[in-house]
């Protein structure tokens, strides 16, 4: 598939998503209250303007793509197509799992240590010291900084009542 076709396909998909959001989600997700009748902007005005702006910008992009006119330097150099997206997807899954469950179950300290160990392994580190000791040291430092330094109570382990970590 050529770059131009890929661009048209992307724009078409994004326009469809934006329109579906504007028609299907936006009216249901905003409670107008009584403000919609009063002076000034209604609660839905700013989100509506934002979605309309997105749709117009996408339509403009589509016109440019169809006509074969394209801008010079989109941040392609900053975001090269990755050689190993699966590793990033693995990291995403680990992070989301710990944000959703891990920190609640294990507490921040233990959860952080396990999360850091899994990520270090995922990134190809195999030395025991770096896989085990560095995550423990880092998490101990972070825990001490926030709990003792800033007096911010981080989540504690839920599975052992009374565990201070």
């Amino acid at each position, binding site marked *: 598939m050529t*770059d131009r076709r890929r661009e048209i396909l992307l724009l078409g998909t994004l326009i469809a998503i934006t329109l579906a959001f504007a028609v299907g989600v936006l009216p249901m*997700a*905003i*409670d107008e*209250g*009584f*403000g919609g009748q009063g*002076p*000034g*902007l209604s*609660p*839905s005005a*700013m*989100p509506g*303007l*934002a*979605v309309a*702006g*997105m749709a117009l*910008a*996408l339509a*403009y*992009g589509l016109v*440019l793509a169809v006509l074969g*006119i*394209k*801008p*010079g*330097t*989109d*941040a392609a150099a*900053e*975001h090269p197509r*990755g*050689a*190993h997206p699966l590793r*990033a997807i693995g*990291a*995403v899954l680990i*992070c*989301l799992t*710990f*944000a959703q469950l891990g*920190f*609640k179950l294990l507490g*921040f300290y233990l959860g*952080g240590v396990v*999360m*850091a160990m899994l*990520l*270090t392994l995922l*990134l190809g*580190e195999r030395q025991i010291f770096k896989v085990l000791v*560095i*995550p423990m040291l*880092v998490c101990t430092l*972070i825990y001490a900084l926030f709990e003792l330094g*800033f007096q*911010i109570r981080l*989540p504690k382990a839920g599975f052992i009542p009374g565990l201070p970590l």
Partner: protein
Amino acid sequence: MEAILEGISLSLSLSALTGILVGIVLGQFLGSIPGLTAAMAVALLVPFSFYFDPWVGIPMMLAMFKGSLFGSSMPAILLRTPGTPAAAATVIDGNPLALAGKGGKAMHTVLYASVFGDAFSDICLILGAGALAAIAIRFGPSEYVLLILFAMLSLVSLNRGSSWRGLVAIFMGVLIGCIGLDPIIGTERLTFGNPELFEGIGLIPMLIGFLAISEVFRQLEQPLHRLAEKTIQFSTKREDNHLSGAERLALLPTLFRSSAIGTVTGALPGLGATVAAFIAYNEARRTAKKPEEFGHGSLHGIAAPEAANNAVSGSNLIPLLAFGIPGDVAAALILGALLIQGITPGPLAFRDNPVPIYAIFSAMLLANVVNYLVGFAFIPLAKRMVSVPKRVLFPAVLVFASAGAYAMRGSLFDVQLMFAFGVMGWLMGKLRFPTILLVIGFILTPILERSARQTLILVESSDGWLPFIGSRPVLMILLGILALLTVLILRQRMKMGRYTLPQQSPDQD
């Protein structure tokens, strides 16, 4: 005169100097931690300041704010992770320079520009607090709407890629900024019944997610051997780690212009350092002899946003000290600390009890000198801090970011949001959308919406737009200036040949 001398001697006391030194060191250290903003750093110190003598606590807080602004640029340059939104513009040129092995030069540029901008605005604060505040205080909601729309336009024109991608990103930021309870009538918007979203999306998870986590995910796609390499390789050549006298001299016009932008922007309550940094960056690029170097490690591209965002820190105290009105979150925190210590800033303070005001002015100038000296020593340490392999650093960054996102509101939901934004930013990057514009759109939305609503109510009560504009000379002048600047920006963009037919330049995109 007597009050001025008394104020200076107060700020030169051992306790005040100790406060300044401790504040700068703590500020630089805390600012360099991704996710801990300058406002957070000052907020953390406010309760402690009560236990100190006023002339330890107040200089320490002012110094901490200055130190944290400089410190927050370190992760922006070395990790592409701005410690505060104001440092986001520094990433654009700072990170490419660091990736080219010239991280030392980039950090010295930041230090030079930060201290220059800070000192410039402090001097402006001292010389013209009353006059500048009098202009800023005449700005109403309509002037704010105009300024913000202009800021957004210049941000889209700043985008190196297609303007439609920039527009989509900025509108998406506005949409995300609308999540939460309506700011005026309090009805739910896009919360889907989730009470965690009633207060809106937190700035910290948004910032860390889009600017730091997405970058980590992007870099994780690299081959394993690249992940075993050090994060940033520093060149061993002296010229790559220092800023020469000639380079310092060449940066002066950019520094003066950017400091002036930052000073004026800082005097306007609410606009803040981020807007100043981006406007200054755009102006530097617009007036540069080699605009094509911007985005690829230009020293002017680093110096402009740094001078501007640091210049804001001095001038945003203008409305605070002259009128008792805090211009932003950090100024509000400083106001709280001054009140704790029994000092009430405002016009009466200048007349009735000017010594503390002059002592604050003097302490701010001294803090700049200390910031430069401590910063000079801090740079080699910062270089060492990031010279670790990515596969060891990134897991630590992800855990630290989780703690930072959790700390602000004590909510695991913010940690989940942060990672969700990280994924969103990573995908946007793959589709070549500029995530920085989304973040800026998000930051500007509350003030834009509030001002737009107030403007419309004022227009309705003025019987239409023309009588409304006609009754506001400041708005008319601003309209003229911004229209002229808009034309100049659009002309510049057209001149740079952004739109080219693909067959003419097949290597592009």
